[in-house]
């Protein structure tokens, strides 16, 4: 049911929410969705997503799926140490963002990679 525990309810929750609260949005998500905490001023609002937003990657475990921040130089990543797309100014090579490419490779601005 949607027992009210200090404002927590499962009724009227948005999208993929399992439980939510008026103040903090989603508290838990439906199975297999990732919970992502967005900042809204001083508040943190939980949202449930099938894929984490840019700058975050998803970690799955039996009881919870979270969006975790990528490394600072990374626009999109597979995990904390493996980047999929780099921020402007650096080039991707085997999951790493580099300002200059290893020997034998040259930076491609269109692909943002060492090629």
């Amino acid at each position, binding site marked *: 049911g949607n027992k009210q525990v200090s404002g927590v309810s499962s009724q009227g929750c948005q*999208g993929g929410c399992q439980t939510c609260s008026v103040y903090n949005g989603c508290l838990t998500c439906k199975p*297999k969705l990732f919970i992502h905490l967005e900042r809204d001023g001083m508040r943190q609002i939980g949202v449930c997503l*099938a*894929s984490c937003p840019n700058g975050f990657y*998803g970690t*799955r*475990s039996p009881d919870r799926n979270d969006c975790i921040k990528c490394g600072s130089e990374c626009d999109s990543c*597979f995990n904390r140490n*493996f980047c999929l797309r780099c921020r402007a100014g650096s080039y991707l090579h085997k*999951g790493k963002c580099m300002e200059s490419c290893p020997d034998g490779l040259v930076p491609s601005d269109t692909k943002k990679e060492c090629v």
Partner: protein
Amino acid sequence: HGSPGAAVPVKQCPSACQCEEDGILLLVDCSEQGLSSVPTDLSPLTSYLDLSMNNISEIQPNAFRNLHFLSELRLSGNHLRHIPGPMLQGLYNLKVLMLQNNQLERLPSEDPWELPNLLSLRLDANLIMEVPARTLSGMRSLRHLWLDDNALTEIPVSALNDLSSLQAMTLALNRITLIPDYAFRNLSNLVVLHLHNNMIRTLGQNCFEGLHSLETLELNFNDLQEFPVAIRTLAKLQELGFHNNNIKAIPERAFVGNPLLQTIHFYENPIQFVGRSAFQFLPKLHTLSLNGATEIREFPDLKGTTSLQVLTLTRAGLTSLPYDLCHLLPKLKVLELSHNVIEELPSFYHCTSLQEIGLQHNLIKQIEMNTFQQLGSLRSLDLSWNSINSIHPDAFFSLQSLIKLDLTGNRLSNLPMTGLTSLTHLKLKGNMALSRSFGLEDFPNIRVIEMPYAYQCCVFGGCSSYRSASQWEEQMGSEEEDFQKKSPSLFPIHTDNNYDLDLEEFQLAIEESKLQTSIQCTPIPGPFKPCDNLFD
């Protein structure tokens, strides 16, 4: 909606979607619109199409036939059960395909998806039980593959053989029980491999052969019975995790093939035996945590492992420490050796970066002058529950950063005061022969203090006039309760691997800001614990 295949104005945006121009191309977002099918009036200049979180259970044939510029297609969070090969025909420029959070049970085998430029394929959070041999044969450029949170019972060895460009893959959260020899034979470019949360019990001796570029391997939360010796071929490995398994021993020279290892997480294993040479020649390793390996009698031989910053070796049978410990480990910041049977200490003189020492629950009797000399960064020293009966007068002389000292449960009759002025936390409870009185000037920064006797607290509690017990208890009781609720454990010695100095400082700052005004001294004097020193 027009009929499929009918000419569509170049830049038209389907009604339920939002579009944005990207040069001559179009970014189309139709997510969370309650759609039950793919819009038929998609512009041929669509380069990004997001159909995620809708109710699409089937894709009409030719739905994407004209989208030759499509680079990213998101179909995650729908109800798709099966996507035959022809459905994705014509997507020659597709680089990212997201199919996670659907109900896919089977992947096409006879008529595989032809996606020659695909780089990232997300199939996680579906119901996939197997990956047929030819399924991935049309995706030779694939670099990133998510197959986690499915129902796989074995490694899709044949299917993976075609993916020599693969760099990152997760097969976590499946039902895999075995990794056969040469399972990843052609994956010479794989950098990251996640296999956590499966039921892996057996590893082939050569199961990781071919993974020449692997840097991260996660085997956490499986059922491994033995140390994964197959890792010996992973010369580039930097991060290894096999915590939460059932491994009882770490053999001699366990990581001889992995000189680049920086982190090894293996807590939550019933490890009893550790070969003395197990952790040799790991020059980049910065954290080593061994808890409860009761068969360890001797300190490990850490030759060539010179960058350790956190060493935790608790609940074992250590009787002594190497005299040249600090020559071997000059970068040590945290040394946690509680619950052993250490009797004598070497000099930690060269461990100048040491910030935290935990030696509680050992058999130490004496502290020499040079034991803790020159440890200018030492902040926390826990010597509680030993048999210390003497401390050299200058033992703490150079410890200008020391703020926490725990000598609970020893045999002290005196305490050298030199060097203790920066203390904020001091614990002396249980030293029943330590009856002298102290003064506020001895500890100008003290916040929390535990004394052997109540009268020793009077000078800190400001008890100039006698207060009735109830009044006293009431006032101190509420403060003590308040203190217990808020404060973390006074000596938060970290025994797991992700020790974080900033977090502890942050907690300490919170506590200090609240405790600015009062000094918490126990035991609290009262009617049966008077303020006068009964020994005078």
